[in-house]
């Protein structure tokens, strides 16, 4: 007995991790997107050699989800020391107080950088970051198509009139191709092509102080009208799709970025393309963005972090990064002028364009602003809304965002207090009591001694511990958050009762998302259940090659949603499988014929993929259910001479009932919570056609940083799902009490 205790004792302490205190070396943590991991490591090794007392830990982020990680880390109060940020993110992080003010450092260096990039790192007249690299968009055009259409390949269009003339010429000569391409279906690309047009005609979205949105009406309307005119002859797709179509020679002109310089030769080395400044009405303006290096406030070693930033933005390293073939150019004036690599004609055009480029208005609510912009652009392209209506809608929406923002700025915010933990624990207890009151405990079954019941708790204990800690606690925690105006960046300023819930329920976007989610659930659940049941029955019959067939039907869930989504995006594209099927059946194609870019077809497309992804698992459950049916029952029915259908209806189905309930419940939950498919394929677009509840939640919480509101959406969703589940389960088990 003694040894038993000792061994438990030792086991317990061996679980406590030993901390190794290494020699005192400053360890910096650095998060970045831009440079491939191995090459960045080499650069950092050089840095470590130069400053032996500093060690840099690097974490490679990816573009799709990097922002989520940064947001979560800020919310939890642990961030890296140095981080790469996109230029549009900087104002909101600076505003939230997450970034270190490095004005003193920047005062010395600011003349070294391209002047337009400085506005990306400036907030309230203080500097919160150092411009690292710059990127801009130029006009790419297909020289071969130009030549065949009788246009001069060395004279690309310079203004709107010429551009439209060229587009018409190309459209006449090549009715099957797309003379121009307009990005849609994403949040962050539609305005990247539109705003330069708008700027070039002399428009500005906001006044200088960024307090009011007053785009010039005539300019905006003209510009949108021109855009609509172009869209008749344009490929409407996501940027990545446009780049690929251009590389395969199907697009005459597009406005795109430097990554094409390596993409096009890789896909189609023979494509002869030219690059020119973006055509503009008065001046040839383009959009400039870039990457910024910022230091987080929580860093313990601000001086060392500055050394790292200084090293990474030094001329030598910038040239090295530029030479490694990224799509960006350095932010230093010196490098742009002197570096030989950048003097090739292909790179030069980007540097030339940067002179005429404009950065975005540095506003912390940019993510919301860009959403409204994209919405208006897509609206006028898909629904042919009159430009004047779009204009008044946009001005109203933008002014609303600005006024809400300036109001919220006045509130003082704090980080979450620890009392929320106490509150959560109290909440857990309250929840338990509440549910207990609702369901009086009835002891059923045979009476046992209390000891035996205690043994049952032993079975439950390990599960219970994890459940309470990692599920119930966060659950109650976020329930409390849903009653506050908590934002991961700003902290919170106080409880606001049911305001979040009321605001969300009133939001027309939420109502739309709810409707889409209903459609989605109604459309997918019956199909995937019937399909799964059918396949399970067929497999149970031991048809030829049964093992292979079963494994293949199961296979879709083995690959990650990202990969499946990219495959399906290809199937849904203009030249993809679904369109060729339509052609084969002599059915008309939808317009636009890229299904995911078509507001009418996009939701159905996501539904098809969802069924494809999920029905295999339900099939496995049904198979297990079929195998668990006592064979004697079936044998008896054979002997009694029952018909196949009757046997299925009166013996198999009732026996399968628990499994059917299980599958229906799982399926309902999954359909209501559909997120990865939407996230990977359409991101709620085009024109909000695939906005579902969880995507709305994600957008609110992680793009607009309204976590309180987002949590409220989560709990509304919980109520909705719960309602449907109760409905389904009572319907399925009505008149019977086979549930114990």
């Amino acid at each position, binding site marked *: 007995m003694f040894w038993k205790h000792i061994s438990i004792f030792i086991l317990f302490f061996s679980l406590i991790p030993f901390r190794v205190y290494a020699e005192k070396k400053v360890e910096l943590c650095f998060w970045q997107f831009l440079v491939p991991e191995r090459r960045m490591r080499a650069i950092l090794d050089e840095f470590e050699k130069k400053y032996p007392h500093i060690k840099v830990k690097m974490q490679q982020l990816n573009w799709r989800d990097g922002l989520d990680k940064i947001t979560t880390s800020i919310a939890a109060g642990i961030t890296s020391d140095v981080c790469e940020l996109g230029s549009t993110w900087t104002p909101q992080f600076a505003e939230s107080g997450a970034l270190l003010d490095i004005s003193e450092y920047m005062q010395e260096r600011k003349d070294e950088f391209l002047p337009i990039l400085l506005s990306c790192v400036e907030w309230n007249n203080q500097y919160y970051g150092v411009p690292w690299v710059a990127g801009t968009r130029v006009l790419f055009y297909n020289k071969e198509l130009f030549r065949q259409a009788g246009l001069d390949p060395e004279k690309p269009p310079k203004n709107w009139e010429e551009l439209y003339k060229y587009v018409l010429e190309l459209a006449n000569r090549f009715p099957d191709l797309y003379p121009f391409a307009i990005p849609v279906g994403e949040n962050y690309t539609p305005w990247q092509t539109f705003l330069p047009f708008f700027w070039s005609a002399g428009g500005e979205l906001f006044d200088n102080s960024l307090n009011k949105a007053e785009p010039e009406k005539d300019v905006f309307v003209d510009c949108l009208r021109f855009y609509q005119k172009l869209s008749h002859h344009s490929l409407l797709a996501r940027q990545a799709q446009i780049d690929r179509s251009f590389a395969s020679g199907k697009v005459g002109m597009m406005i795109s970025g430097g990554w094409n310089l390596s993409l096009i030769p890789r896909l189609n080395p023979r494509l002869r393309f030219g690059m020119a400044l973006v055509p503009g009405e008065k001046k040839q303006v383009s959009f400039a963005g870039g990457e910024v290096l910022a230091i987080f406030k929580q860093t313990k070693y601000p001086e060392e972090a500055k050394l790292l930033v200084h090293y990474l933005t030094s001329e030598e390293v910038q040239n090295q990064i530029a030479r490694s073939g990224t799509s960006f150019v350095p932010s230093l004036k010196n490098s742009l002028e002197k570096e030989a690599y950048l003097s090739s004609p292909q790179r030069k055009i980007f540097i030339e364009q940067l002179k005429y480029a404009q950065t975005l208005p540095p506003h912390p609510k940019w993510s919301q602003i860009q959403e409204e912009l994209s919405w208006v652009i897509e609206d006028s392209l898909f629904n042919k809304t009159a430009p004047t209506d779009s204009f008044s809608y946009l001005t109203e929406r933008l002014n609303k965002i600005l006024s809400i923002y300036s109001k919220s700025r006045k509130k003082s915010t704090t980080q979450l207090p620890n009392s929320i933990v106490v509150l959560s624990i109290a909440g857990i207890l309250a929840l338990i009591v509440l549910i207990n009151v609702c369901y009086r*405990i009835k002891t059923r079954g045979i009476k046992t001694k209390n000891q035996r019941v205690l043994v049952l708790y032993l079975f439950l204990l390990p599960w219970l511990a994890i459940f309470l800690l990692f599920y119930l606690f966060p659950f109650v925690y976020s329930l409390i958050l849903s009653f506050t105006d908590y934002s991961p960046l700003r902290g919170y300023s106080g409880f606001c009762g049911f305001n979040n819930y009321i605001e969300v329920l009133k939001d027309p976007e939420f109502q739309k998302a709810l409707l889409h989610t209903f459609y989605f659930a109604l459309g997918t659940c019956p199909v995937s259940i019937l399909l799964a049941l059918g396949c399970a029955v067929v497999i149970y019959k031991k048809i030829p090659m049964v093992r292979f067939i079963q494994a293949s039907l199961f296979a879709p869930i083995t690959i990650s949603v990202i990969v499946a989504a990219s495959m399906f995006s290809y199937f849904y594209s203009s030249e993809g499988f679904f369109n060729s099927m339509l052609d084969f059946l002599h059915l008309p194609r939808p317009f636009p014929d890229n299904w995911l870019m078509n507001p009418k077809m996009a939701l159905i497309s996501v539904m098809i993929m969802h069924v494809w992804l999920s029905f295999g698992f339900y099939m496995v459950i049904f198979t297990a259910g079929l195998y668990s049916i006592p064979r004697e029952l079936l044998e008896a029915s054979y002997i009694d001479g029952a018909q196949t259908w009757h046997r299925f209806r009166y013996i198999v189905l009732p026996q399968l009932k628990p499994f059917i309930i299980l599958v229906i419940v799982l399926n309902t939950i999954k359909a209501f919570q559909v997120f990865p498919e939407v996230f990977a394929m359409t991101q709620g677009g085009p024109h909000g056609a695939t906005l579902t509840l969880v995507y709305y939640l994600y957008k609110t919480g992680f793009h607009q940083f309204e976590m309180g509101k987002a949590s409220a959406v989560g709990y509304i969703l919980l109520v909705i799902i719960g309602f449907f589940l109760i409905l389904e389960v009572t319907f399925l088990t009505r008149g019977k009490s086979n549930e114990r």
Partner: protein
Amino acid sequence: MKDRSGPIVKWLLFILILPPLFSVLLPFYMIIRIAIMPEGLTASENGAMVIWTEHDPISQYQWRSKNGMIHQAGDTSLINVTWQGIDTENPVTLSYPFHQNLDNFTSLEIIYKSNAPSFTMGFSDRQGKTTSSTIKNDQQGDWVTSRIALKSIDFSRINLQNLNSVVITIDQPAGGTIQIKKIKCLYKSITLANFKNVMLSASFGRYLLNSVFVSLLIMLGNIILSTMAGFAFAWRSFPLRKTLYISMIAMIMIPMQVLMIPTFILIQELEWLNTYKALIIPFLIYPINIFLMRQYISKIPTAFAEVALVDGASYFTIFFRIILPICKPAIAIVGINTFVNSWNSFLYPFILTNTAEMRTLPVGLALYIGLFDVDWANLMSASSLSAIPVILVFLFFQKQIIAGMLSGTTHNL
């Protein structure tokens, strides 16, 4: 049980299942096709990538030449280079931009006419270093097709990841001309190079190891914990049973994005960030599994177990001797579900880890996806590789499902 449906019915059913089977397998066919084909193959002709042909006009920054005159001869648009009296230190170099992954190619082919007895052909990288192989011109003044196997080129001197151009160097002191009709690279028709790339990249093994370790532990934990808890839930009433059960169902219904920030804060407070603990322990229970298990166990008739209880058997005996064997199919489903979920789970591992050593496969795979540029070949081969363990796990559990049927005699009790 004797199977009573005849062969005709079976074949009919087989035909019936073909359409879903086809639609399920089609994307897989595409994935594997992308994985085993070199990336540029779509833009190629007859298994070769044409780098330059006589129909392509020469533009200034496509062909570049040092010390030589490039001109295009009228409509024939052959490339035509003449030079005069150069020395060996300043050879004529012609270069053409070329950014490709050479793993996909077998050889370089050139069709030319020249009066030079030999010249060299090779590649240069962005730093300007070159490597090349000599071509002997036997039929001076005639059209010749020469092929260089890429194997014969010494690639140790240049940085293959930074290839910049195809370079033709001629160091003949006497003047001369060269005319080029076509340059192309011959593809391997099917290549395992993408798989090789992925497997040999130092981190893939580590990602795989992490994924296998984490997913297996999560799967085992889930099987054990959820069977035990499901048993407790299904078997008998005890205080708080309904409460816990309902709150567990609520856990299934709340979207995970809502719980993300609190969970992250919790794990940070526990100082578990970037450890296996953070990747495993919170996921040892998936609420959905308990639901599944309870649903299955509650279907088992209680009569015999009650007899056992009265006979003095403990709950442990009942659990291990009676419940576990019957539950095999349910365990199989739980196992498959858990393994698949944790194998493919992306967001939590991404947020909870900070270093490359701790990454799981999906987190590593996501790095192949750039903002606008996706590394398709590597992404597809990596993801088809990463599907293999899941298929293996499925095949293993599939056996258990059928074994459950064979041993399922307890239902008759």
